[in-house]
């Protein structure tokens, strides 16, 4: 039994939309950091380096 053509088309279309939906919270998070001027990934890296050098 094969998948219907119309269904397959919608699956592909919605799959592409989903890629944007997956990326949306990550993009919004970085937009938030940009607005607030925060760089938490750098702070963590510095903290890790300080701990290693102690």
């Amino acid at each position, binding site marked *: *039994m*094969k998948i219907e053509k119309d269904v397959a088309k919608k699956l592909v279309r919605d799959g592409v939309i989903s890629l944007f*939906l997956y990326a949306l*919270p990550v993009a*919004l*998070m970085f937009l938030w950091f940009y607005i607030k001027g925060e760089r938490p990934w750098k*702070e963590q890296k510095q903290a890790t380096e300080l701990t290693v050098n102690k």
Partner: protein
Amino acid sequence: MLKYVEALFQHINGWGLPVLLLIVGCIEFLFGLYNRKADRNEFILDLLSFAIPKILFRPILAYFSLQLLPVLLPGLQGSLSWVPFFWGAVIIAVADDLTQYWNHRLHHQVPVLWRFHRTHHSAPYMGVAVYFRNNLIHVLLFSQVYLVVTLVYLGLGYPALFVAGMKSIIVAAAHSSIPWDKPFYRIKWLHPVAWVMERFISTPATHHAHHAVTSDDGVGYYKGNFGNMFFIWDIIFGTGLITRKYPSAYGISHYERDEWYAQFLWPVLKSRVRDSELSANGPVVRMDDEE
């Protein structure tokens, strides 16, 4: 008493949730909310679906996170631990629930996958027991839990715990035969809340519609309403039907009570019911009796 309730919610991601849902299941059973359609065969299947994955998943997930992930993603353990809790929760909620939406939708719309998901739909009743009722191979192979465990490995542990707790409660409540959403439709000043709620999360009304025997009465809609925690995916992709009524019958129209072992372990074990989708020479998808 309050001490026990507090402990239950403190351990919601461990023993708390199973105990809470067991209590809800007992309440549903005592109030006759299983429509008296749950016979011995269904009971054994529901019980195994509840217990066995809990035993099997622990060593599998331990192996996946402690042995496999360090090999697949070397040096990346904890690399996302700088992500603030709020954003971590949003990222995980979307990643987990959108993946489960797709997992669910594909099992309905791709014929070859349907039989793995059929066990979840064969119950002629609704209740928290149905939330757990699944084919074991389906649970082990197609779970989005592996994605969440990967995100935990990358450093999103606390947000993952929070989202897992929230999601379990919402999805279990959507399967429950306790119609907790009815007051939102009946009481006028709650209507705006109902409008937002039924578009945002799965409610008993919309999720019961997904488990209905028919999609032709304007209430049932097993051809859609694939959302688990969030219903918003169904709104975005046009696969949803918002209803405030409950279906008159649940399950699969051609269900002839396949043996519990076949439903739990297909394709390893097959059904003896003739023409069943789970039988040795059965159809991949059997058309509805009414069609």
